[in-house]
């Protein structure tokens, strides 16, 4: 049997035609019909570029400069635009990374889903819409009959991603390209989306190429894995072989970046730097009862000790970034108080003095946008030095050099512009900028979520090292529970703005958990290829609107161990478990352990 997809000596170049840079070097592989191949690697490894060549497409500024990409009998590398237009969407389909961006915001979902079927003339609009509804149901989307009438902004991210899969499958393509389709989703949503994809691909016997940076996700989806680094194939083997017995050292490096070693420090007895008590905050006008119009956080208390890391974890919309903004004073709390080194802290940054500002520094999620790309590294780091410590001239230069050395960057970078740095380097500068103020607390808001696995692991290592050296407190905000469990001395779990669980990092090593934490923990894919198939719950948020000021348990609509009659009538009590953590739940320790 001849292979369905044959990529032979593929070469892709970028840049200007006079001075081309080769970004994909002589890549060859083949794939049988119905097989799922994963392309895995860090950003810059060429994985998306290779996947796109199967559609005969190269992003602006790139072009296929050699080799062949055979899909069935068609060589996608030597077709004209008009020929490609008849193949794309019909024979080869694409599922993009961010469905939110890949759907046209101004057109209804159904029009976009059936568009390629109508363009290629493979079926009538009526037939296409009927097929789309069938696909919606197959992808377990809610109300499949009517969801197509909505606009993209009216459905959730996880639903949009599945709708995009329906858009790809509408013409029964031979090959589907999945380009990091779950990277932008919460772990809990990711499970459902992956399950839907896997079932759909299996049911139609479609050949698929799955691009990802996440080995655990790929382990669930793929029959074979192609490991890429800088546009070259490092390893091409069946999934089971890669996971159990990787040949290439780079593959082993990727594997080890997934598995955290659980080292938890304990500095529970050092003095409290930041105390937060009964914070309430939200957006919009403050109503007469003293509460904001759109409440986000309610009754949040915690203590941050010197040299400690406190992890704040939750899905998107849990209020974790809002919490960071409240601590930083960017969003003043509507009630509750904060103490910095035992002195009361004004809730608004405008009322805080320079010293207080200096002691609380924020490291923003996205270094690309947080740092001005036109400024030199030396100026970015020098500015807080002059502002907080009055350093100028040679002293300032000296300190900038020290800071660069602290985050393990070469001193020469001081003269470079930020725009010219890599993602990992920028995040280090971002960190150094916060450290320049010599703060007692740094707030790290999802500092690794935009980075590749290996780079992210290096940043986390750096954080730990800096903490040991400088004895600062870190508030670490993340959606990734395995990172938080590994890194933090204390963990706070937020759900819809309420603190559902709070305890030492150690206490999070094993059950019992709050049902929500349990969902978070169990939703993280493992390297076991059977993992996805063994999960069978569907805990996506129902369409019952539960506001962030609801006094009952806000997780009750998704909870699988809800106690009927109790959870929807009485506010949950805060329980102390034997492991020392507190849990906001009606179930007691014995009941939680069995759930």
């Amino acid at each position, binding site marked *: 049997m001849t292979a369905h997809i044959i990529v032979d000596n593929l070469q892709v170049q970028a840049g200007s035609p006079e001075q081309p840079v080769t970004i994909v070097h002589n890549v060859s592989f083949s794939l049988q019909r119905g097989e799922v191949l994963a392309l895995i690697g860090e950003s810059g490894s060429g994985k998306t570029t290779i996947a796109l060549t199967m559609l005969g497409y190269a992003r602006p500024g790139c072009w296929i400069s050699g080799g062949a990409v055979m899909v069935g009998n068609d060589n996608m590398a030597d077709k004209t635009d*008009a020929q490609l237009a008849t*193949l794309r969407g019909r024979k080869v389909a694409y599922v*993009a990374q961010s469905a939110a961006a890949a759907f*046209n*915001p101004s057109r209804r979902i159904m029009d976009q889903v059936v568009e*390629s079927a109508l*363009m290629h003339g493979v079926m009538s609009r009526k037939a296409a819409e009927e097929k789309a509804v069938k696909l919606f149901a197959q992808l377990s989307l809610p109300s499949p009959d009517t969801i197509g009438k909505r*606009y993209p902004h009216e459905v959730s991210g996880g639903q949009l991603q599945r709708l995009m899969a329906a858009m790809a499958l509408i013409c029964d393509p031979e090959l589907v390209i999945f380009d990091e389709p779950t990277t932008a989703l919460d772990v809990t949503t990711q499970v459902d989306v992956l399950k839907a994809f896997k079932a759909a691909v299996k049911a139609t016997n479609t050949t698929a190429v799955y691009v990802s940076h996440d080995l655990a996700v790929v382990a669930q989806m793929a029959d074979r894995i192609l490991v890429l680094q800088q546009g070259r194939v490092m390893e091409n083997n069946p999934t089971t072989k890669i996971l159990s017995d990787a040949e290439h050292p780079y593959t082993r490096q990727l594997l080890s970046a997934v598995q955290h070693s659980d080292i938890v420090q304990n500095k529970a007895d050092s003095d409290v730097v930041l105390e937060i008590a009964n914070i309430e905050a939200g957006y919009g006008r403050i109503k007469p009862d003293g509460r904001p119009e759109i409440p986000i956080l309610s009754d949040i208390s915690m203590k941050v000790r010197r040299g400690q890391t406190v992890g704040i974890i939750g899905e998107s919309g849990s209020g974790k970034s809002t919490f960071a903004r409240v601590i930083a004073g960017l969003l003043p709390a509507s009630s509750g108080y904060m103490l910095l080194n035992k002195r009361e802290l004004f809730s608004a940054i405008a009322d805080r003095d320079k010293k207080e500002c200096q002691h609380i520094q924020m490291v923003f999620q996205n270094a690309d946008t947080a740092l001005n790309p036109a400024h030199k590294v030396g100026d970015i780091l020098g500015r807080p030095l002059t502002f907080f410590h009055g350093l100028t001239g040679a002293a300032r230069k000296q300190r900038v050099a020290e800071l660069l050395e602290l985050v393990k960057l070469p001193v020469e970078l001081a003269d470079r512009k930020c725009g010219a740095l890599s993602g990992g380097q920028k995040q280090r500068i971002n960190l150094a900028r916060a450290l320049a103020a010599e703060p007692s607390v740094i707030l790290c808001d999802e500092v690794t979520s935009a980075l590749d696995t290996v780079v992210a692991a290096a940043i986390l290592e750096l954080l730990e090292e800096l903490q040991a050296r400088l004895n600062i407190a870190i508030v670490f905000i993340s959606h990734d529970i395995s990172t938080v469990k590994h890194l933090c001395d204390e963990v706070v779990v937020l759900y819809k703005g309420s603190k559902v669980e709070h305890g030492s990092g150690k206490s999070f090593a094993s059950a019992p958990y709050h049902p929500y934490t349990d969902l978070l923990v169990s939703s993280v894919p493992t390297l076991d290829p059977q993992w996805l198939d063994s999960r069978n719950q569907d805990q996506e948020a129902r369409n019952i609107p539960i506001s962030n000021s609801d006094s009952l348990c806000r997780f009750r609509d998704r909870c699988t161990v809800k106690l009927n009659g109790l959870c929807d009538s009485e506010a949950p009590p805060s329980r102390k478990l034997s492991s020392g953590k507190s849990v906001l739940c009606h179930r007691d320790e014995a009941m939680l352990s069995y759930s």
Partner: protein
Amino acid sequence: MKVIFQLILKRIGLSLITLFIVSAVVFFIANLLPGDAAQEMLGQSATPEAVAALRDAYGLNDPPLTRYAKWLGGLVTGDAGTSLANSRPVSELISSRLSQSLLLAGLTAVIAVPFAMVLGIVAAMHSGRRIDKIMNIATLTMVAVPEFLLATIFVLVFAVELNWLPSLSYIPSDAGLYDYFRAFALPVATLCIVLSAQMARMTRAAVLEQLSQPYVEMALLKGSPLSRAVLRHALPNAVGPIVNAVALSLSYLLGGVVIVEVIFNYPGVASLMVDAVTNRDMPLLQACAMLFCTGYLILVLIADLAAILANPKLRTGG
């Protein structure tokens, strides 16, 4: 819908405040002009007594604040006052000219807007290629050339040298379609060129920004040809910024129309306004200024509304 209604109300309120400020500025700046209507009317040889008597009759001797209050009061009740130069009601003078000005502006808009859109979209689709570069140079040149220069060159070439078209835009009472065409050709062409250059550039930028969005790439990867991806996917999302650009350009037209009307002696509001300046006919001048300002504010409001209506997220209030 509620959001849009609230926005319109809010913007109308703000526009009224703006108009009030403008009225004060217009009034006091107009009063800084040397000489007054009495002086202008009686000429250089007038006796000071005669000038003083006329001033008294016009109420020009009242303190400026009193005059301003009187004028503003009249304006609010719909009475723009009486022209000092020929004693006819200002509203009557303006209304006879307004239709002419609107005709000129309307014709210009009808020709310039589609022309500019096509230019902009074609340039965006071929961005970076030769056709785009040529259009870029051409539009930049046209944006930089002031309309009075362009109008003068047109008169010089088409009216004086070639003698194809009249240099004055005069429409006889028994005018046929051909006469209309001859009368409008030069002023409309002048305004169109300046205006479309501006709009074409903004259209190109708006479409180009949408073309870099992932959903356009997605449309291409669904098998849609580039033209379809532009017209069906990018353009609907660029409509907000484009209408915005068009409305702002048309408000620029209000300024251009003053110069063009004067050069071609076109009987519109703008040339009326320029006459009012020469005659120190303050009530007329102020009324014209207020009229232009109102037109400008309306266009800006339309621009903002277009931006909202083009966005389904804002449209549905979600």
